[in-house]
């Protein structure tokens, strides 16, 4: 019981603290009640000058007397609310008079002899207006402990419909107990969004601070600053990653036992995973053939950054035979035999694989293949899945990091800030390339993630090629992570720019870059 009371006392104190009026308001309240400072000081138990200091803002109310003073102010504020039109003041006072509970800090919860709150007929809470079965001591519905946030004038209407005896008084009284300056109370989702935004702002501050630090240290030498930033990109991005994981739901396994297929036979040799890197040249077009077909080489912006949104296995990969390991919420690597690709104009989503037969692909590639074999596309047959190494997966794993880096990138482009742009690029690309077995990043050993993100980038590129093809353009070439060569007016299909959803023209030394012409080859 006593513990319960002390909790109530703390809650009351917190409520009072939350509604402490500014110094000028303190004086106004006292003068409105026609009280002298000496009277207040005597009631609160401090000196008169102390009250004067509290009123003109020289000091803030401190413990001996603070609680009493706040309680007094709160009571006064309820009698003399700070209304924009002073004429309105007498009216609520008159209404309030017959309702003594309005003067105490908050209505008390009705409790049984055992100290537990008693439930009754459900009705809208007099504080927040949301339905509750708990009651206040005077029989009106009220959330237990009165911990709900007071609502605006809204509960006035539902209060009238509640069957309590005090209904006539409750209806006009309901708006009155609300604090004089009604603070906008965010809903839970709004609070979450706000705290997430704040957390993101905090973390993105790390990026700008790092850039600023190195720029200052280099003393105007941009090249030196960039070098220093790239050097610290890996530890920095790991720190950012851990920051974004701070309140995360899953704890990932950073050093899982790896299946043999993911182990590199030596430091230089690759493991057995086929990432489906594209290297496609349309057989119907040739640079050497005479002709006047205009082709534009396009570049996907920050392809690996976008690819951070992919299904990543959280824990250690587990082996399943057949199609057992293939589920929407699992990810990993799969041994499949892809169906033959016969489309005359679109690249094989499996990449330029010469060897026939089964191969280990990542979940990103498998998802693409399964999509393409589905009724919506119907471009190929479903691959045969032989075995899988998978774990429970989530698509949002690196999403916070992706958004963070993406926002920093957008801002850098807008401000024409080369340093930040290159720094962000180094962070996400090195994060991906060193998340496997690397001596440069020992914070995690997840080669499976690296492969999955790589092939997600290739799958995304394939999606862009498909989109262009659907719009009537021909895909002349699709190479690497981000290169797409298209005939015709590509601006109809893709917006031009440097944003992650946009495309830009790829310039380079190669013959097939920028805008060039090819000829058609008869087949």
């Amino acid at each position: 019981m006593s513990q319960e009371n002390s909790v109530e006392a703390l809650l009351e104190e917190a409520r009072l603290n939350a509604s402490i009026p500014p110094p000028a308001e303190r004086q106004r309240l006292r003068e409105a009640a026609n009280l002298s400072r000496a009277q207040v000081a005597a009631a609160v138990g401090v000196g008169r000058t102390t009250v004067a200091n509290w009123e003109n803002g020289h000091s803030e109310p401190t413990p001996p007397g603070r609680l009493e003073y706040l309680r007094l102010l709160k009571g006064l504020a309820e009698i003399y609310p700070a209304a924009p039109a002073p004429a309105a003041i007498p009216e609520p006072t008159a209404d309030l008079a017959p309702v003594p509970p309005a003067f105490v800090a908050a209505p008390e919860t009705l409790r049984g002899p055992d100290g537990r709150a008693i439930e009754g007929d459900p009705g809208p809470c007099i504080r927040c207006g949301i339905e509750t079965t708990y009651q206040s001591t005077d029989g009106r519905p009220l959330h237990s402990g009165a911990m709900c946030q007071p609502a605006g004038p809204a509960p006035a209407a539902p209060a009238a419909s509640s069957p309590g005896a005090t209904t006539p008084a409750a209806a006009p009284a309901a708006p009155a107990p609300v604090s004089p300056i009604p603070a906008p109370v965010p809903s839970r989702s709004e609070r979450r969004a706000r705290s997430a935004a704040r957390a993101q702002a905090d973390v993105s501050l790390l990026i700008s601070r790092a850039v600023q630090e190195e720029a200052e240290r280099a003393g105007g030498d941009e090249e030196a600053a960039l070098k220093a930033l790239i050097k610290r990109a890996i530890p920095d991005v790991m720190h950012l990653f851990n920051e974004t994981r701070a309140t995360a739901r899953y704890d990932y396994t950073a050093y899982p036992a790896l299946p043999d297929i993911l182990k590199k036979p030596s430091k230089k040799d690759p493991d057995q995973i086929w990432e489906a890197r594209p290297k496609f040249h349309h057989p119907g077009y040739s640079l050497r053939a005479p002709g006047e077909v205009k082709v534009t080489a396009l570049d996907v912006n920050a392809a690996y950054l976008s690819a951070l949104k992919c299904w990543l296995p959280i824990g250690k990969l587990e082996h399943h035979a057949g199609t057992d390991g293939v589920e929407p919420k699992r990810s990993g690597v799969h041994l499949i035999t892809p169906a033959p690709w016969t489309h005359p104009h679109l690249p094989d989503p499996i990449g330029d694989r010469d060897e026939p037969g089964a191969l280990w692909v990542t979940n990103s590639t498998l998802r693409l293949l399964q999509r393409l074999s589905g009724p919506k596309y119907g471009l190929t047959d479903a691959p045969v899945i032989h075995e899988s190494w998978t774990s429970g997966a989530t698509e949002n794993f690196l999403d916070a990091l992706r958004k963070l880096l993406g926002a920093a990138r957008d801002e850098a482009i807008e401000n024409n800030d080369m340093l930040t742009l290159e720094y962000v690029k180094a962070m996400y690309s090195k994060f991906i390339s060193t998340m496997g077995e690397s001596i440069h990043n020992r914070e995690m050993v997840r080669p499976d993630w690296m492969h999955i993100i790589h092939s997600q980038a290739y799958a995304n590129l394939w999606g862009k090629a498909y989109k262009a093809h659907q719009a009537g353009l021909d895909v002349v070439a699709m190479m690497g992570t981000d290169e797409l060569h298209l005939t015709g007016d590509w601006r109809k299909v893709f917006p031009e720019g440097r944003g992650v959803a946009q495309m830009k023209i790829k310039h380079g030394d190669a013959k097939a870059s920028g805008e060039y012409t090819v000829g058609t080859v008869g087949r």
Partner: protein
Amino acid sequence: MAGRWMDLGMFNARGIPGADALGIAIEQMVTGIVSPVDSERGLAARLSYLTKTDAGYEAMDRAGIHVSPRTLMAWLAEERIPNKANRSRLDAAYWDLRRRNVAADLKKRLNNNGRGTRIEINPVDQSRVEGRHQRDLSSRSINVRGVWDRAVDAWMDDDVAELDAIWDDIIQDLGSEYDAYSNVSSIGWAA
């Protein structure tokens, strides 16, 4: 080895003793010449590493390379190539010496100025264990300090018993369930 998990695999759990995992994880920290000993580059690099110091000659001695100075000079001058047996001995001698030389650095990195290193311990793989025999084991992460000098020395001497004792010390800190982590599927750390 601690406790009741003596018969690993009795119920189809898969894993390795913690001592082995510890040795493997330390081993992974060692870097050195990447080129294989069969390549010209890798061989030359190993030979020059082994002939720079007295410790190198001792390492060759330990690895069982007993050749005349004349032959060694011929190898170094790339006039002759060691036969396959000697190449593998050279490789063994190189890694033996390399381990000894990096041990001090490893100790320093793992001790981290007395702060120790946070290690992730992943429990044995129970995916093939029958449901009623499965235990609810999660990945654990603990900070380990004070044992790294011993651990690196034991790893260098291939002293499995000592590594085992160290692993027991480490998992004691995991609480009442420490026993279940005598065997693990993998461990890892960033140092």
